[in-house]
């Protein structure tokens, strides 16, 4: 709440200084919490004289806002719904999506484990504690040891949302401090399973399973189920010049990619 307030205040101050070069970005909290503000900051540091107004109140607000003022940018952590596209069409506008970044989490097992593939339903079952033995998911018999991040981690929450239908973790899960600890335990425990960010799946002794038949590779970011693409949305032909320039920079510049990676996402492309 306070953050939004501060941003609004800051934005309105800038607005007074230079009204024509203001870029308004609204929508998803996932993008708007860290990534976009940091990109905006870096963009200004790179010598571009613009001001930003960023409001992160949920993906849906991106579309309602774009309908009212088509010159701006919308942020969304999900694809646009059909009904939303229709609303734009009804107003004679055409909406265009840009991939801002990808968000991917690998499910890892011990490299000696025979299980190569899990479905999202099985993953939900394993992490919520409904499935407790490897034989239930096509492996050799053995009790599953589940390693998760601890409750303060952001991945803990986003995995819950993406792979567990927002259900709570089973009480048998062990809470580890970080990606490395999870990878370590899984590499030493033949019956272990855990999840780590893409960058940690290369560690020794573990392998990432295919989820719903899709391998965990950055090139599969679009189809991998425990991943989502994060989008910018704009209205075709109505985007302001400053916003066009910023979008091009944010999706292609190396510095921008670096920021995207730093906040834990995979750069687009």
């Amino acid at each position, binding site marked *: 709440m306070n953050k939004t307030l501060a941003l609004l205040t800051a934005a309105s101050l800038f607005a007074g200084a230079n009204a024509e070069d203001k870029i308004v970005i609204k929508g998803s909290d996932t993008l708007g919490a860290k990534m976009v503000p940091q990109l905006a900051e870096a963009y200004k540091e790179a010598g571009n004289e613009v001001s930003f107004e960023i409001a992160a109140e949920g993906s849906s607000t991106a579309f309602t806002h774009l309908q009212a003022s088509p010159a701006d940018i919308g942020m969304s952590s999900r694809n646009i719904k059909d009904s939303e596209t229709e609303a734009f069409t009804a107003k004679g506008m055409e909406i265009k999506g840009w991939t801002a970044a990808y968000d991917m989490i690998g499910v890892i097992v011990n490299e000696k484990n025979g299980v190569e593939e899990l479905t999202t339903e099985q993953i939900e079952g394993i992490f919520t504690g409904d499935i407790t033995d490897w*034989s239930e998911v096509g492996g*050799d018999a053995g009790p599953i040891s589940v390693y998760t991040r601890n409750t303060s981690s952001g991945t803990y929450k986003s995995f819950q949302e993406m792979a567990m239908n*927002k259900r709570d973790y089973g*009480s048998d899960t062990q*809470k580890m401090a970080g990606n490395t600890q999870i990878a370590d335990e899984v590499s030493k425990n033949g019956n272990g399973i855990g999840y780590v960010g893409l960058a940690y799946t290369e560690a020794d002794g573990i392998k990432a399973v295919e989820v719903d038949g899709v391998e965990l590779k950055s090139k599969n970011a679009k189809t991998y189920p425990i991943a989502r693409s994060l989008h910018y949305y704009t209205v075709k032909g109505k985007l302001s010049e400053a916003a066009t320039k910023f979008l091009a920079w944010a999706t292609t510049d190396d510095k921008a990619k670096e920021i995207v990676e730093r906040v834990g996402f995979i750069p687009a492309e």
Partner: protein
Amino acid sequence: MSHSGNPDSPSSPAKERLVFKRRGVQIFGLGWQDVIRIFFGGNASLAIIILILICFFLAKEAFLFFPDHHRDLNSYRQSGQEFVGFMGEEVTAHTNLYSSANIAYFAEVNRTSRVEDTILRSYRSVLANVENRSSKTWGRLEREIDALEEVEDDLSDLDPETEEDVAEIASLTEEKRRLEKEIPPLREKLKREVNTILSWDEIWDLGVGAEEPPADSIPGIREAVLFEAFPDAEEEHPFIEKTKQISKEKKAAAAAELAEFKETIKGMQAVVRPLKDLERELKEPALENKKEITSFSTAPERRDAWLKGAEATRDPEEKARMLARAEEVVIKEPDYAAINQVFYDAITRHASIAAPLEVEMKTLFDKLPTPAGVVTKSAKENLKRAGVFYDRFQESMASNRKKIREWSHDHPVTVVESVSAFLVGKNWTTNSSWHDFYGLLPLFTGSLLISIIALTVSVPFSIAAAIYVNQLSSFREQSFIKPAIEFIGAIPSVVLGFFGILVFGEALRNISQVEWLQWFPGFPMAERLTILNAGLLLAFMAVPTIFTLTEDALNNVPQAFTENSLAMGATKLQTVFRVVVPTAVSGVIAAVLLGFGRIIGETMVVLLVAGNKIKIPDFTEGLGVVTQPAHTMTGIIAQELGEVDSGSLHWRALFMVGMVLFVISLLVNFAAQRVLKKFQKI
């Protein structure tokens, strides 16, 4: 003395005058002596004041937890989440039953393909071992092959007609040529390496206790591993393919025979579907209600924030806007009866689902094979467990049906309920999308179990060591052993924790796999990070405390006692065990108690080594419970305090856990003091 020194001799009259001079340097009318006295006294009282402030702060934050928690539990009820939770319990009871039956089924099916599965497992194990040993070359080859693929991908994307792409195509083609030239020799190198490695015996070490593959499959496994060293082949070696195929066929054949079993299990899964759907359906309005209630309780704060913002800003436009926003914040209490109507409406629906579910589950359960009717040990055990879970399922259905019928959203949570929800609550769930629970019991049992192990191990060792050093050893031994044991206390606990993860945990698990140790409850262990591991490390840490204090207690036994005993003709050992130790027993008890205090307050080791599973350990395993992971009171504070908002319920819950620890330590110290006082009377 040089000529510049004081020529006065001690007997000179000038010196005598100085000795008796009352007034030296004075500060605020106080002499040096007074200043020093006040300085030391001041330090002592400052320490006490700080201690009191800490206690006050801790107590304030901790006890504010109870009203907050009470409010939270009330909103859990008022939002209808509690109601949905009852159904959740029913579903969980069913899932436990279903899962055991399912595991039993798979144990029976997999029994037939055991040989093939062993071969496949051995193959994976050997392959992993080989890959680890040659990881440098292997990794490089894989990277280069990936790189080549990527370059080819990029090349196919580029258009040779467009001008911009031409330069890039040239550089990519160059890269491609380089990779193509590098890969074949690398491949040869890897092949040679893998061949050599395959001849090492340790590669074939499948881990302690693992089943060996049949001898005639070894050449096949070797072939397959060599084949894998050419990572461009997408499909697997024919031998592995074939084994997989046979395994699959055998399983299919077994499954055909066990079709009825499978049908029963599928039936179990199907009959619970309506209940699950109802639960899922009701979760949404419950979460909506929760949101509404939270929004109501935070509304005044939000309005104040806008008002404060309006006051701070100078821009009149901005001010008007903020005031308008403040006006927009509605402080309206939700109509609890209305928002909970959906749950009251669901009572009859639930009854119409639950009754047939129970009936059908009974028929299905009766159709399950009996433990005697299956072959494998695992299936027998799991079917036995399924029996237990079936009883629990029936109990859960009965008790929850009653709870659902009698549930009322406006029945206030009593103080006893809310306090016991913390003190004996079995569930500690935080950062949940549903509802956070703060039940101390899993953490408390974890801490207690670890302490008990640590004490059982460290007490005999340290007391025996203290007796030996104090009574029986030579002076030279004493001067070596004492500092050595006391040095243990100087090892930083985080170092011990790392040792516990990397060395001790692994060693313990390997020991637990040894054949002739299988009588030990809980062996073989699956985990490295367990109660046992943490307990043993803490035992090590407690040794210096208990040893030193016991030794002091033994030292305090008057020499005359020993001398009298020896003079009466008792042997040295008789004297030690009949005279010295009994005299010092209260000091020894105090030492043990203080050792306990040291153990229960230790944080770093348990956080790193105990495994952090927030669940009351499963005592049905008997003593084997020690091989499970657990979480502790100290560990949870260290793990979660860093990220919670100060002043939130979660933060206060953690303070309350700290308070419980504080009280335990206080009681232990108090008890130790009392015991020691008794000892001083001798």
